């Protein structure tokens, strides 16, 4: 199996497990007669950004569902921070430090932007409050300094301060995506799975968010890792330390963005005959290629 030694991904599970935040080993998912994922393995190193790309139907979202615990694999194992979490629930994984966003945003329409972040923070840091606060009227006004700092910091980071008290039901889709990212970050994750976070954002918005992702990984004390599924391949290649390419449920390539860009299998199966996208520097991420622009004929 291919292994990217200098990136965030290695081709197989195992190896230096203390540096691996999240891993999948031989994950297979079958829906009746359809094999959605076939023997897919990956390791996500701590503090790295891993891009997960592939054409529609490649199995990217299915793999994210398996990693996050929303879907049980037919075969294979998932490890989070070294522990086998294959049989555990999505909630258990969340309490262990795994957060995610969704392709179709899964927000709580009755809550405000700030309440989303507060709830996610408390669910991770003080879960007992979900039971205790119903009997304690004073709890409405009990916010810790850590909670306030965390929530306010995220609102500011994501440019959501001015809509903090607005119910998400009143907000446009692009802002809703930012709220979902904010909610995930408020839970102080060790690994964050992002399913098409740039969808619905224009050039400027994509650029902002990509910068945010890079900053939160670099500034994280705990070695936050990101796994990003995104159709904007140019942005993914620019952002990621390493990239995994799926096609028809199988992993066809893994490595650094440059390795993947040059990989003949990727060119044949994913990019077609077209030239790969111009290499972008991280600083120019999303700034030279329009979001959602296809990098190959297949994608269109």
């Amino acid at each position, binding site marked *: 199996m291919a292994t990217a030694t200098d990136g965030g991904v290695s081709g197989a599970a195992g190896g230096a497990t203390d540096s691996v935040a999240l891993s999948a080993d031989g994950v297979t998912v079958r829906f009746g007669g359809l094999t959605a994922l076939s023997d897919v393995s990956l390791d996500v190193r701590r503090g790295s950004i891993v891009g997960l790309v592939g054409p529609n139907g490649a199995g990217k979202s299915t793999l994210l569902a398996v990693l996050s615990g929303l879907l049980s694999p037919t075969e294979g194992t998932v490890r989070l921070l070294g522990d086998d979490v294959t049989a555990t629930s999505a909630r258990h994984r969340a309490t262990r430090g795994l957060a995610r966003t969704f392709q179709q945003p899964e927000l709580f329409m009755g809550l405000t932007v700030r309440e989303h972040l507060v*709830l996610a923070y408390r669910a991770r840091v003080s879960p007992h409050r*979900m039971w205790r606060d119903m009997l304690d009227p004073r709890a409405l006004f009990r916010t810790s300094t850590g909670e306030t700092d965390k929530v306010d910091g995220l609102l500011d980071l994501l440019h959501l301060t001015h809509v903090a008290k*607005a119910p998400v039901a*009143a907000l*446009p889709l*692009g802002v809703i995506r930012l709220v979902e990212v904010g909610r995930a970050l408020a839970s102080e994750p060790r690994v964050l799975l992002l399913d098409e976070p740039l969808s619905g954002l224009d050039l400027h918005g*994509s650029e902002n968010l990509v910068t945010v992702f890079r900053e939160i990984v670099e500034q994280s004390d705990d070695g936050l890792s990101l796994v990003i599924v995104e159709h904007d391949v140019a942005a993914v290649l620019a952002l990621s330390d390493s990239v995994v390419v799926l096609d028809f449920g199988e992993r066809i390539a893994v490595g650094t963005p440059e390795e993947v860009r040059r990989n003949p299998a990727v060119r044949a199966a994913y990019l077609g005959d077209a030239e790969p996208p111009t290499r972008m520097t991280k600083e120019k991420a999303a700034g030279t290629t329009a979001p959602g622009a296809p990098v190959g004929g297949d994608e269109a």
Partner: protein
Amino acid sequence: MLQFVIAGLVLGGIYAIASAGLVITYTSSGILNFAFGAMAFVIARLYYYLHTQQTWSIPAAAAVSILIAAPALGVILYAILFRHLRLSSPLTKVVATIGLSVALPSLATLIFGSAAIQQAPGLAPEPVKVFHFLSVPVTLDQVIVYISVLVIVVAGALVLKFSDVGLKVRAMVDSTAMTDLSGTNPTAISIGVWAVSTFLAGLTGVLAAPIIGLDAINFTLLVAASFAAVIAAKLRSLPIAVGVGLLMGVATSLIQRYLPPASAWTSEVIDAVPFIVIAVVLLYNLVRGGRVGETEGWGGALDRAIMPQGESKLAASTSTVVDTASLNFFGRYAGPLALVAIAVALPLVVGGFWVGLTSQAFAFAVIFLSWTLVTGEGGMLWLCQVTFAGVGALTTAEFVNHLGWPVLAGVVVGGVVAMGLGALIGFLSIRLGDLYVALVTLTFGLLIENLVFTLPTFVNQGLGVTLNRPGFASSDVSFAYLCLAAFVVVSLFIVNLRRSTTGLALNAARWSEAGARTSGISVVQMKVLAGATAAFIAGVGGGLLAVSQSTIVPSEFATFAGIVWFASLVTIGIRSTAAALVAGLAFVMLPALCQAYLPTWTANVLPVIFGMGAISAAKYPDGILAEQSRRLRQLLRRVAPDSLADDHFAEEIEAGVTETEAVGVAPGVAGGTT
């Protein structure tokens, strides 16, 4: 033995036809039709009216009622109600059909009269001809049931499998949107499906009437029993539904062979058979970790994509969320505070008989708050709150009368016992899905009603159990204030819960299970917490109701009576604590006002109004009180624009739109979710 099997096949055949109608409707429209029994009753009543009261011949009466009126009823109901439910959540659909099940029988009573009819004719001419099959007597009515089942199963299978119409129906089940895009008119198919469904309801009604009499409750009970077959069929498999329906009938008949015929317990066990089947099937599904997957199984990706996100949950439209958030303190609390002020004045203003009713109304309001929590906040449809109220009432009586506990302590213990049952029911049903919660709670209510509320110690030869008021609140006025105080305390608890971490987590579990779970929130735990707490509230309310009446007659806590309670609350408003107070007052006071000051027939209009109100939940999920409040606010905003608005909120929304540009939201996607 053979005799029992042949006899059992009659009841089983009726179960099978009802189950077939329910499955066909569910698979083609996503609607589990709780009003199927009410439809069957209306058509059976029409047949009785034409044949017995108007002396029409059997063929003429049957043709008009079953072949013309029944399908027409389906078409009319589709046009005025069901077509609007296409994109609604499963729970909204269920609530609408519950409203229909309350409204239709009362409407039939208004039209045909309220005389009790114990003996109703079937489709066989009188005197009914008797055949002998293997020395077993078989009536012509029974033969007609066998033939009907056979024709429905064979014709249904052939049409669905091999005909062009069947192909179109199956296509629509997969995706209405794609069927429409393919050039087939889904409306025409839906009309046809509803016509067939109500035809089956009508046939069920006419066939069942000679066995169960013309009583709306019995019809609804019959269809509730048929839910067992539908659940066993996982709501979708026609052959399994029909098979289980037939087997249930045979099993019911065979049980009679082995149990003492004269025992009251035998009768209770026989009535409980379908519900025991439901319990067994649900436990089996629970062990297997199955889930009915309501919306997931109906419609394709395109259908789900066009379903408005904010409208997909019961009783919490996003427009209301935004509207409420935009209010200042005066806008939010002026109405509820005015209502409480009126409630405080009421026991002093009214006199004599009406004061006692006021305390009952406040007790009902407490019971209604249990739905405000579990349905309004939790997004779950629990149909056994009346059972919890009954459990609370009887437990209170037991602790006060037999153990000598103080009344209020007994009321609290009643709530605790109900809470334990609520936690158990929630744990068993919530992980199976929202639709199963409705079915399980309905089944639980009927089981307790049949097996516990009928115990001689509680029935006491029809007199019920007496219960004295506490010494400090022995007068009607003081006890009314005690009930009002309980209402205020529970209301404040719910208001606090809404904004607490618990409320936020419950809100999360209701709006997005995937989002909640991946945020570290246990959906099952939060919903069980809501269900158990609501059961406690219902138990306390039931205890207060019992004390206010000084007597507990268990039959007052019948499951179907609870459905009327629920319909009245949904009509006024399911999310608002103030609406629970208004609903309590309306539910108790309006019938008394009708009896005191209006012609007696007007009392039958109220269930129709409540039923229609529940039906309107499809359009106004927050109820008429919230809707009228919203309109009043709109009017006030026009007159005095700044009187209600929260200035900060307006800035937030404006900022949200501005920030759309700042954060770079692509043009064309800033459409919001409403």
